[in-house]
C-alpha cells in the first residue's frame, strides 16, 4: 500500500483545495473555518478590551466627566455581551473546530457546510452588534437584559432589539456547531478509537457541546418571547397582565449558568492536554476526570438560581441551590488534583505554556473559592451586584478561560504556523498580564466589600473607593499592554520563527502526526488507534500516514473521503464523502441576515419573505446532495470494504437530527416551564378570559399531526418494497397543510387576544411552536419529493425518509403536548 508521499499529497491537495481569492468565501474546510472563528473572536476580544479600558478610564477618578450614563450603560452592556457571546463562545468553538478532527484522526468535521454557515451567522450577528455600538444605539440594559428595564416601556429604542436579535443570530451559530461537534466526536474518529481511548480533549468538547445543545435553548426561547413582547405587546414578562419579570431571569440563568461551564470546560480540556506534555507522562486519572466533567455538566444545570439569590426565592430552594453551588467545587477539585498528580508523577519541564498554567492555577483557585463564598447565601446577599462579584467572575473567566487559552495558544501555535516559538517577548508579556490582572481585580474584591455596586458610572469622593478604583484602572492598562505584547509575540513567531520537522514538544497526540502547517486534507491516510490516543508517537506515525499506509490512503473519484465509525467501539462502519467548497453557506447566511435586519427594523413582511426564501434555499440546495446511485461496498484500505454514508445503517445526519430534536425539545420544555411558572408564581392570575374551542377543531388538528408519522411510514415502506413514496408523501403533505391551517383558525377564533394576558400569550406561543414545526415537516416532505424525483432516494439510500420519519414523530408528539397544554390549562386554573 506504500506510495510516494509527495504524489499522494498533491493528489489529495487538489481534491481538498479551496480556491484562492474570492473563492475563499466558499471555504468549508475545518482548518479555515476554525481559524476564522478564532481570528474573529480575537478581534472581538480586542473590541471588548477597549470598552473595558473606557470603563476603567471613567472609574479611575470619582465624579469623572469623561463619559455620561447614556454611553456608559452601552459600554458595560456591550463589554459583557461581546466577551461572552462574541469572544469566549466563538473562540472555544474555533479551537474545537480547528483541533478536533486533527486530534481524533479524521479529515474534517461531519458537516463542513454547517460550520461555514455557523461562521457567517456569528460574523453577521457580531457585526450587527458592532454597528449598533458605532451608531450609538447599542444595548444598554446590562448583558443579562433584565425585564422590565429591557421592555419596550423602559427601553423604547432599538437598543434592546439589537441585543435580542443579534445575540439570537449568533446563537444559531452556537447551536449548529454544538450539533456538529457532538456528531463529529461520536461518528468521525480514527478506526479503533473507542470512546475510552479518545484524547481527553474530545471528552471535554463532547460534554461542552452537549451542554450547549440543552443550555442555549432557554435563552433562545427567552429572547424570542421578549422580542415578541417588545414588538407585538405579548405580555410574557409584564406583571400587570399575568407575566413575570422573574421568568426572564430564570430563562436567562438557565442558560447563563451552564454557559460559565461551557466556557470553562474546553479551556480545562486544553489544560488536560497540555499538562501531560510538559509533565512528560500521560494524564493521571483519565477516568476520574471524565466522570468529573460529566458530573460538572449535570450540576451546572441544577444551580442557575444562585445568580438570583436576592430576587426573593423560598428558603428551602435557597438552601438547595446554595449546597449545589458549593458542590461544584468537588468535580473541579478532582480535575485540578489530577493535573497536580500528573505533574507529581512525571518529569515536569518549564516552558511558556507552563507559565500560563501556573498563572491559571493561582487565579482560578482564588476565583473558585470566592465562588464558594458566593454560594453562601448571607454573604451573597451582601456582595451580590457589587464589584466583589465583578472581581469574582473575572477571576473565574480570565483565570479559567483566558489564561488556559493563552497556554493553548503558545502550545498549538507551532502546529498552526509550522514555526518554533521564541521566548523573548513571551515571558515579559506573561508577567505584564499576571501582574496587571491581579492589580485590577484583586483590589476590586475590596472595592465591592466597601459597598461599591456594579454598573454605576460614577461615585463620590466620600465613598472611600477612590484609591481602589485608581489602582484597578492602572492594573487594567498594564493588562492591556500585556495582551498587545502577546499579539506582537504571535506575529513575530509567525514571521521569524524557525521551521521544524515534526512534533516539537514531544507530544503524544495525533495532531502532531500531520504536516504543519496543516494541509487541507489533514491526514494523507487515517491511522488505526490501538491504545489510548494520548500515548501515541507522532514522529513514527506521521511518515507512515503520509505514505498512505493507513486507511483511505488514496485519491478516488475526486471525493473528499473520511471514515465514519461506530459511536462507542470506534470500528469503521462507513466511508463519508464530504462536500466540496461552496458559496451556499454564505448565501444562506446572507439571507438569514436579511431576516434578522428586517425584524430589527420592523419590516415584518420582508422578514417573512426572507425566511421563506432561506428555507427554500436550504431545500433547493439539498436537491443533489449525496449520491445519485447505489455504490455497494467500497474498499477503504487494509482489506476493509465499507458502504458509503448514503447507504450506511448509522449515517451522521440521523444522529445530528436526534440532537437537533433534543435542542428544539429543550425549547419546548423551557416554554412549558414558563407556562407552569407563570401560572403558579405570576401576579394577576387567573386570566380574565380563557380559550373555549370546543372539541372538533382540536380533534382535526390532532388528526393532521398524526398523519405525519403515519405518512412517513407509508413513504418509507413504499420505497423499501420497491415502490414509490408518493402515497406517504401525499398523506404527510395533506396532514401538515391541514394542521397548519386549522392551527391558524384556532388561534384566530378560539384564543383570546394574546396581548390581553400572559395566559393567552403563552398559549399563542405553544400553538405557534407547533405550527412552525409542522411547517418544517412540510419542508422535509417537499425535499423528499424533489430528491425522489432526482433519483437520490432508493431502497438502499433511504436516509431522507428515515430523517423525515424521525422529524414527523417528534412533531406529532410535541404538537399534541403543546395542544393539550394550551387546551388543558384553563381546566386547571
Amino acid at each position, binding site marked *: 500500500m506504500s506510495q510516494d508521499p509527495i504524489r499522494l499529497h498533491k493528489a489529495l491537495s487538489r481534491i481538498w483545495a479551496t480556491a484562492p481569492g474570492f473563492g475563499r468565501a466558499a471555504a468549508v474546510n475545518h482548518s479555515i473555518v476554525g481559524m476564522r472563528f478564532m481570528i474573529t473572536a480575537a478581534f472581538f476580544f480586542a473590541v471588548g478590551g477597549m470598552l473595558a479600558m473606557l470603563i476603567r478610564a471613567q472609574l479611575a477618578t470619582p465624579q469623572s466627566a469623561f463619559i455620561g*450614563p447614556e454611553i456608559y*450603560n452601552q459600554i458595560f452592556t456591550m463589554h459583557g455581551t461581546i466577551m461572552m457571546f462574541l469572544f469566549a463562545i466563538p473562540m472555544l468553538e474555533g479551537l474545537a473546530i480547528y483541533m478536533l478532527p486533527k486530534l481524533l484522526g479524521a479529515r474534517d468535521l461531519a458537516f463542513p457546510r454547517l460550520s461555514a454557515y455557523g461562521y457567517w451567522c456569528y460574523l453577521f450577528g457580531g457585526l450587527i452588534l458592532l454597528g449598533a455600538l458605532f451608531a450609538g444605539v447599542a444595548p444598554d*440594559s446590562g448583558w443579562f437584559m*433584565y425585564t*422590565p*428595564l429591557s421592555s419596550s*416601556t*423602559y427601553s423604547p429604542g432599538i437598543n434592546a432589539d439589537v441585543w435580542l436579535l443579534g445575540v439570537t443570530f449568533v446563537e444559531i451559530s452556537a447551536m449548529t456547531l454544538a450539533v456538529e461537534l457532538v456528531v463529529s466526536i461520536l461518528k468521525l474518529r480514527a478506526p479503533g478509537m473507542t470512546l475510552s481511548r479518545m484524547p481527553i480533549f474530545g471528552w471535554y468538547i463532547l460534554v461542552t457541546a452537549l451542554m450547549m445543545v440543552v443550555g442555549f435553548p432557554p435563552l433562545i426561547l427567552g429572547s424570542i418571547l421578549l422580542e415578541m413582547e417588545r414588538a407585538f405587546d405579548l405580555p410574557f414578562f409584564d*406583571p*400587570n397582565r399575568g407575566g413575570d*419579570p422573574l421568568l426572564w431571569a430564570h430563562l436567562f440563568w438557565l442558560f447563563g449558568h451552564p454557559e460559565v461551564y461551557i466556557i470553562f470546560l474546553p479551556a480545562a480540556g486544553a489544560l488536560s492536554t497540555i499538562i501531560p506534555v510538559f509533565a512528560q507522562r500521560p494524564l*493521571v*486519572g483519565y477516568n476520574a476526570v471524565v466522570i*468529573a466533567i460529566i458530573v460538572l455538566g449535570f450540576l451546572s444545570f441544577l444551580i442557575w438560581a444562585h445568580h438570583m439569590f*436576592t*430576587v*426573593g426565592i423560598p*428558603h428551602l430552594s435557597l*438552601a438547595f441551590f*446554595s*449546597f449545589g453551588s*458549593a458542590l461544584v467545587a468537588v468535580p473541579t*477539585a*478532582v*480535575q485540578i*488534583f*489530577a493535573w*497536580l*498528580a500528573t*505533574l*507529581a508523577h*512525571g518529569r515536569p519541564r518549564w516552558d511558556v505554556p507552563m507559565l500560563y498554567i*501556573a498563572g491559571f*492555577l*493561582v487565579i482560578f483557585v*482564588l476565583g473558585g*473559592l470566592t465562588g464558594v*463564598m458566593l454560594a*453562601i*447565601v*448571607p*454573604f451573597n*446577599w*451582601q456582595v*451580590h*451586584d457589587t464589584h466583589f462579584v465583578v472581581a469574582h467572575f473575572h477571576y473565574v473567566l480570565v483565570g479559567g478561560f483566558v489564561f488556559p487559552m493563552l497556554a493553548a495558544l503558545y502550545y498549538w501555535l507551532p502546529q498552526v504556523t509550522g514555526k518554533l516559538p521564541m521566548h523573548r517577548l513571551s515571558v515579559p508579556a506573561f508577567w505584564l498580564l499576571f501582574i496587571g490582572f491581579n492589580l485590577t481585580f484583586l*483590589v476590586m*474584591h*475590596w472595592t465591592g*466589600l466597601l*459597598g461599591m*455596586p456594579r*454598573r454605576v458610572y*460614577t*461615585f463620590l469622593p*466620600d*465613598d*472611600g473607593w477612590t*484609591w481602589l478604583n485608581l489602582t484597578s484602572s492602572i492594573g487594567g492598562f498594564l493588562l492591556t499592554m500585556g495582551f498587545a505584547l502577546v499579539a506582537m509575540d504571535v506575529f513575530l513567531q509567525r514571521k521569524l520563527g524557525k521551521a521544524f520537522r515534526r512534533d516539537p514538544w514531544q507530544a503524544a497526540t495525533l495532531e502532531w502526526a500531520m504536516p504543519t502547517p496543516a494541509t487541507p486534507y489533514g491526514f494523507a491516510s487515517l491511522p488505526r488507534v490501538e491504545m489510548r490516543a494520548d500515548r501515541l508517537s507522532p514522529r513514527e506515525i506521521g511518515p507512515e500516514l503520509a505514505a498512505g499506509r493507513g486507511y483511505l490512503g488514496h485519491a478516488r473519484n475526486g471525493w473528499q473521503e473520511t471514515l465514519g465509525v461506530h459511536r462507542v467501539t470506534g470500528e469503521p462502519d462507513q466511508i463519508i464523502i464530504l462536500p466540496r467548497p461552496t458559496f451556499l453557506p454564505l448565501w444562506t447566511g446572507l439571507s438569514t441576515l436579511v431576516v434578522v435586519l428586517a425584524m430589527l427594523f420592523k419590516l415584518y413582511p420582508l422578514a417573512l419573505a426572507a425566511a421563506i426564501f432561506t428555507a427554500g434555499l436550504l431545500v433547493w440546495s439539498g436537491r443533489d446532495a449525496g449520491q445519485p446511485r447505489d455504490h455497494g461496498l467500497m474498499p477503504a484500505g487494509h482489506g476493509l470494504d465499507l458502504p458509503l454514508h448514503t447507504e450506511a445503517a448509522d449515517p451522521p445526519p440521523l444522529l445530528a437530527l436526534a440532537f437537533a430534536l433534543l435542542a428544539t425539545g429543550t425549547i419546548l420544555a423551557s416554554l412549558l416551564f414558563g407556562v407552569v411558572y407563570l401560572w403558579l408564581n*405570576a401576579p394577576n392570575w387567573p386570566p380574565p378570559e380563557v380559550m373555549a374551542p370546543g372539541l372538533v377543531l382540536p380533534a382535526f388538528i390532532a388528526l393532521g399531526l398524526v398523519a405525519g408519522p403515519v405518512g412517513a411510514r407509508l413513504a418509507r415502506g413504499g420505497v423499501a418494497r420497491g415502490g414509490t413514496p408518493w402515497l406517504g408523501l401525499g398523506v404527510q403533505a395533506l396532514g401538515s397543510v391541514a394542521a397548519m391551517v386549522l392551527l391558524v383558525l384556532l388561534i384566530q377564533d378560539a384564543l383570546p387576544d394574546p396581548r390581553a394576558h400572559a395566559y393567552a400569550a403563552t398559549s399563542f406561543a405553544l400553538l405557534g411552536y407547533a405550527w412552525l414545526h409542522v411547517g418544517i415537516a412540510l419542508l422535509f416532505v417537499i425535499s423528499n419529493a424533489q430528491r425522489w424525483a432526482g433519483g437520490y432516494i432508493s431502497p438502499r439510500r433511504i436516509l431522507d425518509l428515515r430523517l423525515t420519519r424521525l422529524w414527523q414523530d417528534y412533531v406529532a408528539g410535541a404538537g399534541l403536548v403543546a395542544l393539550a397544554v394550551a387546551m388543558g390549562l384553563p381546566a386547571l386554573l
Partner: protein
Amino acid sequence: MAALPLLGCAGELSVLQPAGPIAGSIATLSWVMMIGSLFLTALMTAIFFFVVWWPRRAARISARAWIIGGGLILPGLVLPPLVVAAVVVGERMMPHDPVPRIEAHAQQFFWTFRYPDHGGAETRDLLHLPAGQPVDIHITAEDVMHAFWVPRLAGKLDAVPGHTNVLRLQADTPGRLEGLCAEFCGLGHSHMRFEVRVHAPDEFASAVAAETTPSAPEARP
C-alpha cells in the same frame, strides 16, 4: 490581599463595618471565608510549585491519593461546615416573629418609604429606623427591578414589579447610615441612593410623625 486591611474597612457603605447584628454576623462570616480562601489559594500555589520543582518527593503520594485527597476529602472537610454555618446565619436573618414593618417602594430613580404603623406617614429617599429593634422592610417596585441595600445593616433584596420581598433589618445605635439601589435600573441608577436615620426607640415615633407629607426629593451631588 494581606496588605489590604491597611486600606481600611471603614466606609459609609462598607460591609465590613457593620452597624447591626445581622450585618455583624455576615461580616464575621466574610472574614472567616476570606482568610480561608487566601489560605487555600496559598496552599494550592505551594502544592503546584512543590510538584513542579520536587516531583520525586511529590510522587511518593500515589496518584489515586492525590485525586481522592484533593478532589474529595479536601472539599469534604471544607464545604459541609461552611454550608451549615451559612444556613444557621441565614436562618437568624429570616423574618420569624412579627415585628414592625416599613414599606420600601422603588421607582426610577427614588425610594418612597411608608410607615403603616404610624398612620401611613411617607418619606422620600429617607428611611427612619428605630435603634435596637428588628424591623421588616417590605420591598416593592413601581416600574423596573431595583434592589434595596443598606450595607452596614444587612444584605440586599431585589424590588421586583409584581412581587413583595421582605428583608429584616436591625440597627444597634442611633445615627446616620446610607443605602442605595444595587440592581441596575437605568440612567439614574448611580444616583439612586437614600439616607437612613436611626433614632433612639423613644424618639422614633415622633420622628416619623413629623413627616406628615411626602418630602420633596433631596438635592443630590
